[in-house]
């Protein structure tokens, strides 16, 4: 298989414009003859479904929650980037492009990143027009804040609920189209397989999560906006239902999986409190604007934080990275936290925590201003821990947060299966080996509002698709696969719950494929994950039947897929004999403990091909060229 990224010719500033001009258009009157399936109603899927319907296509949209408004995008707190330069502080499209390529540790595709920076400005305009209540200054203009990995202030926000407000904007646009009859919405409906006819994606098979009914939906193209796979780790900041099922089934039908090992570990999360823990809660990165991170200077110092004098504290980020200080990118901040905890200087139960202290900010700005900026986060922290961050510093620790890997897509966001697109966190994305804060919301909305609706038109206008119906052999086969699998999960009748397998997998992944990775650990995972998977298929317990609302059955199906994807992640991590961004191979570090990239050998995106059950997957390379932003060692010192 030859990978063709279909990057348009020409200077980077002109690629998207000239591509848009060259792409074929679907005549307005013909658009209603096409049906597009959009799986997922997060920022990416919701925006795409609404926009495609506005353009005149018939859209069928799907989500597993009870309403499209509840997609996991709702939980994003901090903000969304855009190169508006409203602060007059030197921002530009080129600077956002530059920061993103550098922040991604030179493992992203330049042409995509440039386009992302270009459309970022349109996103803000669109969202404002929809009525998204962004924060404002007294003069009535939009307010900004800073985020990690940037020295300009380009992040737009709506209190600590930016994702919620952006998603509600997209959801309202979607509901408008549902009301107008252009979108047929299927909530509480889970995609379990893909229908491929003559090598082209033509539909999906779903299970109605209330009645258990298996249904087929056919279309002219299929778009997956199904989010990230951070829940492989069981404990992550993702919503409990976030899963990899849709992308994994697509992968098994020929969609290559890009950079599966690139995982983002977020530095500021509330530490684990017990073994019943069901998820981890993020404390937005925006807190690092005003909060100072520190640990005691001496290992094993058990004094209360207030009793430790300033001279006996180590503000280790400010010390190690004087120019970015507390605002270094996430991968750097997470590893630094792990390093001080490994030295025995961690705080709180188990020593897995560092302080994020607002005492200086409260002194400088007053408690009211701090409350205005972060009030809801402080409240959330207090509910979970029972401690008041206005009085004692927060305790934080890194947690799995985001996956930069995902289905490999070309410049048009099409996977290696023709007619199958992946958008938002589900694709292997524009973030390289590390995503900058406030850039996922930007990418999801860029894909959904401004990129996919154009590129999919080009495909539909230039492809001749034969009519098919529900009796087609490929449809019957896909339905049979889904039924067979459901029956298999229900018929094992073993002793362990899906969650217990999931927790065990998560622990293996966190220990050996988390913040630090090495050959021994990864090899051990590659032995143990297949064993765990074998046990899963022999000893799983799923109560109830397939013809009813059955949450355990839903979970079991998702865990089955995580048990395969986890293995691929370890394989990719083992293969990538370098450190880059969120992928830190302990064997490859600079003398002062920073990630050591190997551009000679590894300046490529790894795209893995599924070769069948029990077969080793095959890796294909998309080599990455850096014509504009020249790779250097990423330094935030």
């Amino acid at each position, binding site marked *: 298989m030859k990978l063709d990224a279909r990057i348009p010719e020409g200077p980077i500033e002109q690629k998207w414009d000239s591509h848009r001009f060259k792409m074929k258009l679907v005549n307005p009157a013909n658009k209603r003859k096409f049906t597009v399936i959009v799986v997922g109603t997060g920022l990416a899927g919701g925006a795409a479904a609404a926009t495609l319907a506005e353009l005149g296509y018939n859209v069928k949209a799907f989500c597993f929650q009870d309403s499209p408004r*509840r997609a996991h995008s709702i939980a994003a707190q901090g903000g969304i980037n855009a190169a508006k330069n409203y602060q007059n502080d030197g921002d530009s499209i080129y600077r956002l492009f530059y920061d993103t390529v550098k922040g991604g540790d030179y493992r992203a595709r330049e042409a995509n990143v440039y386009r992302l920076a270009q459309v970022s400005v349109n996103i803000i305009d669109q969202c404002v027009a929809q009525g998204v209540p962004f924060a404002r200054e007294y003069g009535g203009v939009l307010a900004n804040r800073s985020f990690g990995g940037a020295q300009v202030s380009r992040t737009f926000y709506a209190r600590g609920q930016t994702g*919620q407000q952006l998603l509600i904007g997209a959801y309202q646009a979607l509901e408008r189209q549902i009301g107008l009859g252009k979108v047929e919405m299927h909530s509480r409906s889970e995609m379990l397989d893909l229908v491929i006819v003559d090598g082209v994606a033509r539909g999906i098979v779903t299970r109605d999560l209330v009645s258990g009914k298996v249904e087929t939906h056919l279309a002219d193209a299929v778009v997956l906006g199904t989010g990230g796979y951070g829940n492989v780790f069981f404990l992550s900041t993702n919503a409990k239902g976030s899963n990899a099922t849709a992308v994994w089934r697509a992968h098994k039908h020929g969609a290559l999986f890009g950079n599966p090992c690139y995982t983002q570990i977020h530095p500021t999360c509330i530490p684990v409190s017990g073994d*019943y823990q*069901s998820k981890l809660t993020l404390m937005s990165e925006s807190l690092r604007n005003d909060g100072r991170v520190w640990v005691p200077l001496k290992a094993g110092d058990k004094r209360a934080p207030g009793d430790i004098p300033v001279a006996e504290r180590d503000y280790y980020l400010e010390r190690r990275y004087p120019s970015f200080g507390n605002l270094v990118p996430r991968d750097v901040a997470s590893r630094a936290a792990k390093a001080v905890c490994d030295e025995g200087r961690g705080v709180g139960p188990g020593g897995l925590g560092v302080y994020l202290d607002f005492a200086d900010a409260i002194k400088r700005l007053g408690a009211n201003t701090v409350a205005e900026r972060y009030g809801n986060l402080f409240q959330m922290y207090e509910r979970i821990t029972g401690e008041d961050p206005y009085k004692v510093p927060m305790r934080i620790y890194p947690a799995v947060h985001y996956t930069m890997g995902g289905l490999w897509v070309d410049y048009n966001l099409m996977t290696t299966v023709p007619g199958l697109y992946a958008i938002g966190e589900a694709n292997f994305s524009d973030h390289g080996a590390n995503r900058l804060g406030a850039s996922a919301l930007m990418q999801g909305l860029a894909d959904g509002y401004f990129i996919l609706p154009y590129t999919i038109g080009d495909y539909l206008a230039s492809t001749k698709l034969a009519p098919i119906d529900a009796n087609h052999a490929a449809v019957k086969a896909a339905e049979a696969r889904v039924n067979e699998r459901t029956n298999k999960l229900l018929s094992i009748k073993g002793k362990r719950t899906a969650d217990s397998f999931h927790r065990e997998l998560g622990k293996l992944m966190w220990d050996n494929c988390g913040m630090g990775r090495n050959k021994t650990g990864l090899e051990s995972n590659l032995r143990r994950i297949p064993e765990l998977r074998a046990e899963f298929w022999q000893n799983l317990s799923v109560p109830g039947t397939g013809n009813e609302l059955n949450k355990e059955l839903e979970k079991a199906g998702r865990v089955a897929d995580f048990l395969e994807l986890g293995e691929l992640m370890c394989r990719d991590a083992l293969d990538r004999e370098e450190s880059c961004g969120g992928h830190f191979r302990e064997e490859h570090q600079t003398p002062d403990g920073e990630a050591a990239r190997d551009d000679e050998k590894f300046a490529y995106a790894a795209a893995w091909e599924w070769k069948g059950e029990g077969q080793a997957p095959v890796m294909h390379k998309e080599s990455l060229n850096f014509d504009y932003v020249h790779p250097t060692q990423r330094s935030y010192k």
Partner: protein
Amino acid sequence: MRITLNVWRQKNAQDKGGFEKYDAPNVSEDMSFLEMLDVVNEGLISAGKDPIAFDHDCREGICGMCGFMISGVAHGPESGTTVCQLHMRKFKDGDELWLEPWRAKAFPVLRDLTVDRSAFDRIIASGGFVSVHTGSAIDGNAIAVPKPAADLAMDAAACIGCGACVAACPNASASLFTSAKISHLALLPQGQPERDRRAINMVERMNAEGFGHCTNIGECEAVCPKEIKIENIARMNRDYICASFKDRPAVARLAD
């Protein structure tokens, strides 16, 4: 600590349903309420029984998916908190609790503590938006929004669509939810062009879905996890009445 739970069990919409008693013997105060239920469910599955079905997703109080009655109070005893953010330190050893689904004609029970809230989506589809196609927006800073208006709009827009307001209301009215959306958009310049038809369409949809009328009891505000203010209902009523006088429904329908 040890907690006794009486949980509403109902197999599906047709089933009559009833309470069943469960024992949760080893509850840690750091657990969230849903983590406590996870542990109970693991026990039920091991004993070969059906686990308790409840909706949840983010477990951060933002998606609006979770929610049920705890001893008669929507989302339980802590104010301004969803049930997923409620922690067991708010309870004490030996407590006996009663868990029930939201009860409202417009929210049929699907199973156990899970209900169908799709009526809320239909209310939004009837008018809870600004009709602006992707691509047709002007520059974000070309629309100046006074900070107080932006803040008030944000207060209203914080609604997570959980349905607690309906469940708490003796009339099962959806006025707090509907008015939060009407206010969010009415407070912003972007919402003005469609203000009248939005108020009329959304209020009429809300009534058609089978929600009851608002009689100013205020239970909704008391349980709302996002502390949405009842003044939004006054704003909605004013907009609805003004729009009705202008007889915009006829105009709006002609425009459709």
